[in-house]
């Protein structure tokens, strides 16, 4: 057993984790601050017998990974804001055709080209609603390298479990900073393999007929079952249909398979919540500063706690209600104009007790930014 401790960038951690999860195929297009993911995979994937391709744009990248997923591969693409915008149509295709795939968005400041080399968490709602039409999506995030690893593996596992695209919403600080990573041993984290059909060749296989548990066993392109895949509403054979019953049934299936499992999909970390009177809620790089604030306030005997979200979508309403009920104040710490804050207000009984501590100028939110908001809430001025 060689050295299992590394001191690397967050983007490299994502690469290590994707390889650990069994990544076979990556397609991407360079964009700051995600480019290192493509660069490292161009080097590492062929060593593992996998395939890397730099496509002509992010639209093509997203399309290519969907095609590769259908041949039975574990697939990934990585991008940042503008590229994530370009991927939205094909991301919706992956939702509709139920294609397991993972999309990393290392967030930068937007809209438009925005502020490429600086931090933001402005794409939280885009991850939820970027593609057109009603749908459900899974989006995960992380605040430190050990968690970037864990969440990346989770993303591959959830993509297979729910036959869905999973978005990894990292940010410029987590992506670019260097810190310690302890590489998990082989088999230390369970990996979800693709669920394949047990139907024999020559027997009618229904690629889009869900089992009782809502899962749909797949068959690889090139295998014994030939079927149709489409972005149109489709019947159990994957053939286009505008039958109202089929349309309604499929939309409900696409949404319910994720929303009704929100509790299972919810990943979060709790710090001092048992007796907390005031709760900070944060995620991604912002949660680092939030944790620092909570740690120092606890040392002074003040009953603050932190709920760090790792699953952003489906939004863990129940977790928020359970952990924040009875809190005098809830302070959401994020680097946007309140995208998660809005969800928290929707989740709790007393939205008037929810406050936003944020920063949207491309500068990392630091503990004193948060403390300033806490002072304001207490009516102490700044």
């Amino acid at each position, binding site marked *: 057993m060689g050295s299992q401790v590394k001191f690397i960038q967050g983007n490299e951690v994502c690469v290590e984790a994707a390889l650990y999860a069994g990544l*076979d*195929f990556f*397609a991407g297009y360079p964009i700051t601050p995600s480019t290192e993911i493509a660069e490292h995979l161009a080097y590492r994937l062929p*060593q593992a017998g996998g395939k890397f391709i730099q496509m002509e744009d992010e639209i093509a990248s997203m399309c*290519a*990974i969907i095609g*590769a997923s259908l041949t039975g591969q574990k697939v990934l693409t990585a991008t940042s804001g503008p590229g994530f915008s370009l991927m939205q149509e094909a991301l919706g295709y992956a939702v509709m055709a139920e294609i397991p795939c993972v999309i990393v968005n290392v967030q930068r400041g937007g809209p438009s080209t925005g502020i490429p080399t600086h931090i933001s968490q402005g794409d939280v709602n885009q991850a939820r609603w970027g593609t057109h039409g009603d749908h459900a999506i899974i989006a995960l995030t992380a605040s430190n390298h050990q968690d970037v690893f864990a969440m990346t593996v989770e993303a591959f596992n959830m993509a297979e479990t729910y036959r869905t695209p999973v978005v990894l919403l990292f940010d410029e600080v987590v992506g670019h900073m260097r810190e310690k990573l302890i590489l998990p041993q082989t088999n230390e984290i369970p990996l979800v393999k693709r669920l394949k059909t047990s139907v024999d060749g020559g027997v009618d296989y229904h690629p889009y007929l869900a089992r009782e548990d809502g899962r749909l066993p797949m068959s690889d392109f090139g295998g014994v079952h*030939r079927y*149709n895949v489409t972005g149109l509403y489709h019947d159990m054979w994957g053939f*286009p249909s505008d039958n109202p019953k089929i349309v309604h049934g499929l939309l409900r299936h696409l949404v319910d398979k994720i929303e009704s499992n929100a509790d299972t999909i919810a990943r979060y970390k709790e710090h001092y919540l048992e007796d907390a009177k005031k709760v900070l809620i944060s995620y991604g790089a912002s949660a680092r500063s939030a944790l620092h604030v909570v740690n120092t306030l606890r040392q002074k005997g003040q009953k603050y706690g932190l709920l760090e979200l790792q699953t952003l979508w489906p939004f863990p309403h129940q977790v928020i209600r359970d952990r924040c009920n009875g809190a005098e104040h809830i302070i959401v710490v994020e680097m946007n104009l309140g995208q998660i804050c809005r969800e928290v207000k929707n989740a709790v009984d007393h939205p008037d007790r929810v406050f936003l501590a944020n920063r949207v100028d491309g500068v990392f939110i630091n503990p004193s930014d948060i403390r300033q908001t806490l002072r304001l809430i207490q009516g102490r001025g700044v």
Partner: protein
Amino acid sequence: MSVKDYIRERFFPHIWCAGCGHGIVLNNLLRAVGGLGMSKNEIVMVSGIGCSSRISGYVDFHTLHTLHGRALAFATGVKLSKPELNVIVPMGDGDALAIGGNHFIHAARRNIAMTAIVMNNRIYGMTGGQYSPLSGPGKLATTAPYRNIDQDFDIVKLAKAAGATFVARTTTYHIQQMADILRQAILHDGFSVVEILSQCPTYFGRRNKLGNAADMMKFFKDNTTPIGSKAKKENPELTERGIFVQNDLPEYCAEYDKIIKKAGGSC
């Protein structure tokens, strides 16, 4: 095997109008495949969105009906991840060369082995007759009520310049040639482009007063000629048919396998 062995009868009748050229392409494509003795399990058809792209639903291969213009990008993922599969990509002229133009030139440049078929009816059929990048100046379309001022592409020249290693053109009138060219295109180890002049009597034909489907096919007969024919020398206005390019150059997936070897991986 007969054409019937390659279709999904369950999904007929098809959606095409009477006289549409796309059905003729379907028939001859299946005749071409039938002559190759490939297993249906080895063939993947990837298409985009348009009347032409609906072809993928009717064939008994692995079929991937994707997004408008993106078929070649999806197909690149299928092919690179499983190079042993034969990938056929039928597209409309708008699909391949307007919204999908970028993917078209880059797939050609990479020389990734797949067969791109452009069913060129010079109009957007599915959306009801708007002009396409192949309509050409002077033509009428719902979005060109005063006649079109857009210059058109020459698909053969474009494919050649972009690096496709097999480039051919035929029409829905010349069905023997179509089947023969498609057979060679599918066997070609590289990116092959086959432009098939096809008729949309419903929109292009009617609006431009080109008569019915038979009249439009007769137009293909009268206005095209084999590459380098005497007729072409006498009448340079004629459109040439046949195989323009057939080169043997390094294929993308094979080149990537070399990368894997170089990196010390095994494939």
